[in-house]
């Protein structure tokens, strides 16, 4: 009996010895990346986008030479504080569900007199051009920091957007048969070393949604949630998601609603 136990122990020790170098290597890599991410939290360049957005918001711009200060983001004209934590939502004046970017475009057209096309011209910044839209997004979202996500499904069009977004989340297509759910439908998965949130569960959706927009260190840009969706679909091998398209709003509704209850904590900083 004792020899069997000894034998079993020896076997177990062998398994541990074989597994240890692998587990150690993996653990070390993951730990180092976690440390790097923690170090990034100190001093977030997103503040530069927030400040620029706040300044632009109060600047007289466009053919009507008006500011965006009277923009109704859902909590009444001129209220920015806490507005993002309740978006997307149904707006009666437009008779449709809008996310933040769609609403900003609406205000640029209605208040500042921009054409719809001009208001959508530079949704994302790049090395050769700044995006005023991403600055607006940084400013408005920063005014919801610390506020609990509270996205309503009271209006039938809000319910419809949520259900469409859910359906789209599972829509497989393209050359690789990928859906959003391929990478974001299960717990504790990674792509390479990147942790993947399970966006079908509250914890995963909360962790992901409340940390966008984010300053992307690897790109030197602040990235909005519209950008996040756009780039997911690029990697999904889909065609290009149109900025503020109905699909982008429906998906945002699905994810934002799933994040309800969590304190919003962005603009964040990302790898």
């Amino acid at each position, binding site marked *: 009996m004792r020899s069997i136990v000894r034998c079993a122990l020896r076997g177990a020790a062998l398994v541990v010895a074989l597994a240890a170098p692998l587990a150690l290597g993996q653990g070390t890599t993951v730990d180092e990346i976690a440390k790097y991410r923690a170090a990034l939290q100190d001093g977030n360049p997103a503040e530069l986008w927030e400040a620029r957005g706040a300044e632009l918001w109060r600047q007289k711009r466009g053919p009507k030479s008006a500011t965006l200060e009277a923009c109704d983001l859902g909590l009444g004209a001129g209220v920015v504080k806490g507005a993002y934590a309740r978006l997307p939502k149904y707006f009666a004046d437009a008779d449709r569900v809008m996310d933040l970017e769609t609403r900003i475009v609406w205000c640029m057209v209605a208040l500042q007199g921009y054409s719809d096309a001009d208001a959508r011209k530079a949704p994302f910044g790049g090395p050769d051009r700044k995006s005023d839209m991403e600055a607006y997004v940084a400013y408005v979202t920063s005014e919801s920091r610390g506020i609990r996500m509270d996205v309503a499904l009271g209006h039938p069009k809000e319910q*419809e957007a949520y259900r469409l977004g859910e359906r*789209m989340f599972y829509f*497989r*297509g393209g050359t690789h048969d990928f859906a959003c759910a391929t990478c974001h439908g*299960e717990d504790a998965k990674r792509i390479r070393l990147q942790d*993947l949130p399970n966006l079908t569960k509250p914890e995963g959706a909360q962790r992901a949604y409340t940390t966008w927009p984010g300053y992307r260190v690897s790109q030197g840009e602040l990235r909005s949630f519209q950008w996040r969706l756009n780039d997911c679909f*690029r990697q999904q091998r889909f065609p290009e998601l149109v900025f503020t398209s109905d699909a982008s709003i429906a998906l945002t509704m699905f994810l934002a609603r799933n994040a309800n209850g969590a304190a919003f904590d962005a603009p964040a900083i990302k790898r």
Partner: protein
Amino acid sequence: MQRRTMKPTMALAAALAAPAILIGCATAPSDAEVATKAAAVLKASFREAGQANLDRLVQDDTQKTCSEYAGKVPPKDVAERIEKANFASIKWPADGKYLGDWKNGERIAQEGRGMQYSDDPKGPAGANCYACHQLAPQELSYGTIGPSLYQFGKSRGYTDDIRKYAYGKLYNAEAYSACTNMPRFGHKGILTEQQIKDVVALLMDPDSPVNH
């Protein structure tokens, strides 16, 4: 006269239809209605870019059926139908050989580019195996969406059957596991026959680091 008084049959039809309309108003749209609308909204929400045209949003039967099961395993009969149809599509190598060069296979397994609208359409596509699988133990940056394939050949045996299985699985994974997350590399023209053979070698060559 007829305009003012309803015929009995019409009255009956109206009486039957009325509650149906009321129910229609009171209840949310069905899943099928939402699915149809979602597909239409998606089509209107994308534009062609680079090599990615709008045809990529047109689902084949497998994509459509698997989307309906929303990340869940489909029932047995549905799964068997999907697997059978996909198995029939596999184009096996004409020379009957499955093993290529594992060193090329490793490069293909590491390469993440291919088929994105941001990628050069002329360049060969990679398989990006490491995004989801552990393979060679030297590569620590691997994903976990798929199972570990470390010692794939060594643990299964270096037989012709397993080589053939690996080739078929890479060519069309839906033939073996309905609604899997794994792309159909051959069926969808992502990898060439030679590239698939090279990846088979990465898994099945006794000299490959995967089997060390």
